[in-house]
């Protein structure tokens, strides 16, 4: 046993897969301590906040300020202020009034602004420009003036009793606050999802649920498959015929279809993660049963099994001591594959809208489903779906690697 384990850990493929899987498990265990709380809590109003650090505007007004005179501050502010559409429309205005812009670089904010200040005249009515467009340029001009002239912003508060506005704070153009001093700063490495939940926190929790679903499904499938395989292989005869009859039929009928039919029949509010996992397990034992049976058949007439039988050992004892140890590696490999396909099955079911109910736990499939329902892939919110796909890929990649590694250890003909 010890020797086998040592051998397994000498296989580079197994070790790499094992490390990836353990890293995922560790993150799952540790992350909730770093960022505690309910992963399904909707912290943001609105959908799909971008990843990044959010600083409370309210708190930063009252936070102690330091003054910095940074040389490129104005330019940066204007850069951010002028969107690329604004720049293009400014250039459109120049061409409409016939100003030579052949030397102008549209990304050079200062040049663009000085040209604008020198030439813009709200009274001008370029040919072919509608009133709405002229109004747009007026507004743009106003906001440009406001952005480049005012040195201080005044924050006011409405006094509740008198209704007067009272000056609360003045914010100078050179005032800075230290992020560490602001009372409320929230870093969302993966932004928020369509419900305004912290995507990373949800992802970690979903990863846990999905692995749990995979484990339950894998365990159920392996136990059923192992039992049926042992019975069919060891007893033979009628039992074997019957079990093989079932197995052959369920090999061909796609388990995907069975899953849909069964899950659709279970009402949405009764479909917890465990139920879905059980259903997945119940429909995917066929492979294990097949391979266990063929292994047992080749073991059944070995000398040590015959000897055991002659000594009058009971059936459970023969199976436990003379057969199981020989097929344990195959069962382990089958289990690993079942876990991986269980996670995938849950994801696919959830995408079809037949996954676990949505209010209790997050799963990888449900996250994917919501991201797709809210068109995250069409509106550029990559953080809502891409990490989910990658997590699924990495989990099944690590499990597949472990499986290949084990395969090479136990089948010497496959070794490199």
């Amino acid at each position, binding site marked *: 046993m010890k020797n086998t384990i040592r051998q397994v850990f000498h296989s580079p493929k197994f070790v790499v897969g094992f490390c990836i899987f353990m890293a995922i498990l560790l993150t799952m265990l540790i992350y909730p301590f770093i960022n505690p709380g309910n992963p399904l809590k909707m912290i943001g109003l609105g959908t799909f906040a971008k990843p990044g650090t959010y600083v409370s505007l309210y708190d930063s007004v009252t936070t102690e300020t330091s003054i910095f005179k940074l040389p490129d501050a104005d330019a940066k502010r204007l850069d951010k202020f002028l969107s690329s559409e604004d720049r293009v429309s400014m250039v459109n205005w120049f061409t409409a009034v016939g100003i030579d812009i052949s030397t102008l670089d549209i990304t050079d904010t200062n040049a663009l602004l000085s040209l604008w200040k020198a030439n813009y005249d709200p009274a001008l009515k370029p040919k072919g420009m509608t009133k709405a467009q002229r109004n747009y340029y007026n507004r743009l001009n106003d906001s440009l003036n406001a952005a480049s002239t005012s040195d201080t912003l005044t924050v006011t508060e409405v006094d509740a009793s008198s209704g007067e506005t009272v000056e609360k704070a003045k914010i100078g153009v050179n005032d800075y606050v230290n992020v560490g001093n602001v009372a409320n700063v929230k870093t969302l490495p993966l932004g928020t999802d369509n419900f305004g939940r912290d995507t990373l926190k949800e992802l970690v929790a979903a990863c846990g649920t999905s692995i749990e679903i995979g484990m339950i499904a894998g365990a159920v499938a392996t136990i059923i498959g192992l039992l049926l395989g042992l019975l069919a292989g060891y007893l033979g005869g009628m039992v074997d015929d019957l079990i093989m009859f079932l197995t*052959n*039929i369920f*090999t*061909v*009928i*796609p*388990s*995907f*279809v*069975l899953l*849909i*039919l*069964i899950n*659709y*029949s*279970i*009402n949405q509010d009764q479909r917890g993660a465990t139920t879905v996992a059980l259903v997945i397990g119940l429909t995917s034992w066929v492979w294990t049963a097949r391979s266990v049976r063929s292994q047992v058949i080749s073991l059944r007439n070995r000398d040590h099994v015959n000897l055991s039988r002659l000594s009058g050992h009971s059936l459970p004892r023969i199976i436990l001591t003379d057969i199981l140890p020989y097929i344990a590696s195959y069962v382990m490999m089958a289990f690993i594959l079942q876990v*991986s*396909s269980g996670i*995938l099955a849950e*994801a*696919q079911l959830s*995408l*079809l*809208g*037949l996954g676990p109910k949505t209010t209790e736990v997050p799963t990888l499939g449900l996250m*994917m489903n919501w991201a*797709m329902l809210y068109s995250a*892939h*069409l509106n*550029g919110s*990559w953080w809502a*779906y*891409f990490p989910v*796909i990658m997590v*699924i*890929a*990495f989990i*099944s*990649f690590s499990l*597949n*690697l472990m499986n*290949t590694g084990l*395969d090479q250890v136990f*089948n010497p*003909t*496959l070794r*490199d």
Partner: protein
Amino acid sequence: MGFTLPRSRFLILGGKAMKGYRKYFGKKILWFVITFIVALLLNFILPRLMPGDPVAAVTAKQAQGLSEASAVKAIYDNYAREFGTNKPMTEQFVTYMTNLFHGDMGTSFSQYPRKVSDIIGNAIGWTISLQLPAILIGWLLGNLLGALAAYIRKGFDKVLMPLTLFFSSIPAFGMAVILLVVFAINLKVAPISGGYGFDMIPNLSWNFVLSVIQHYQLPFWSIVIISIGGQAVGMRSMSIYELNADYVKYARFLGIKDRKIVGYVFRNAMLPQVTGLALSLGTMVGGALVAEIIFSYPGLGTTMYQGITMADYPLISGTTLIITVMVLIATFVLDIVYGFIDPRVKAAQFD
């Protein structure tokens, strides 16, 4: 006289071989029929086995917002009649089977009054013409890659195999989303969704065919890329297994050319891959159906998804049945092909 003996022997052998094949195919056909019946039974029984009244559930979904009890009752009665749930189970089964026999799978709820068979008839062509070539090409490319990896080994194997394994670990829908975002949204070289331009009516003009081909690319490649990985990994291990076999060593010892040996090895390694394809077909089709949804491809996957979101029970039941039958037929065909290409099947029938 000298010629008669071998000729008659050949005839006898030919007759025997034919008989052997007939036995093999007869067995396969029998299995096909039995599995088909079980599939029908499951499609009928599974939804009815579940606790609770499915008609009540459907009515509840349909009658949301209706406060008048008599209206709800009318809806309930209508569905009960449509499904025949007010009759005993055996009678229901007989009606179900007779209707199916006439190609009648009921009327869709969500696209009333369209027949389910009509909706499925429109979708099935899209799914078959998408999945059949994609799975076959993915299988062929994967086998080629796996065989190359086994033959060349070294760097090619070391870099390529983990990469292929990783790609095969991405779920089909994930690959679909990634391809969609990269090629349709960022690079804008492919359309975002559908089977043809939304402003078109299916006809046989050049424009329409071109549009269909453009819309075909992303779903097609997402299935191909996924299936390449799994097949390559399997083919690689099979080929390594065969390359280490005794007959290869013996053939090398005899001085047979490497190229010829490789031909034998890969032919032998292919055989389990054909069985593997037959066994994993259901899973592959399932994954590809979900990928269809991402592209809103007008095939069975999207149809089924619509059925599920609209609580359109007859449509779901119809699509699952058709998908099962498609997989059954494909597996059957693969079994027949296997019978022809594996010499051992022929040999086994002589015993």
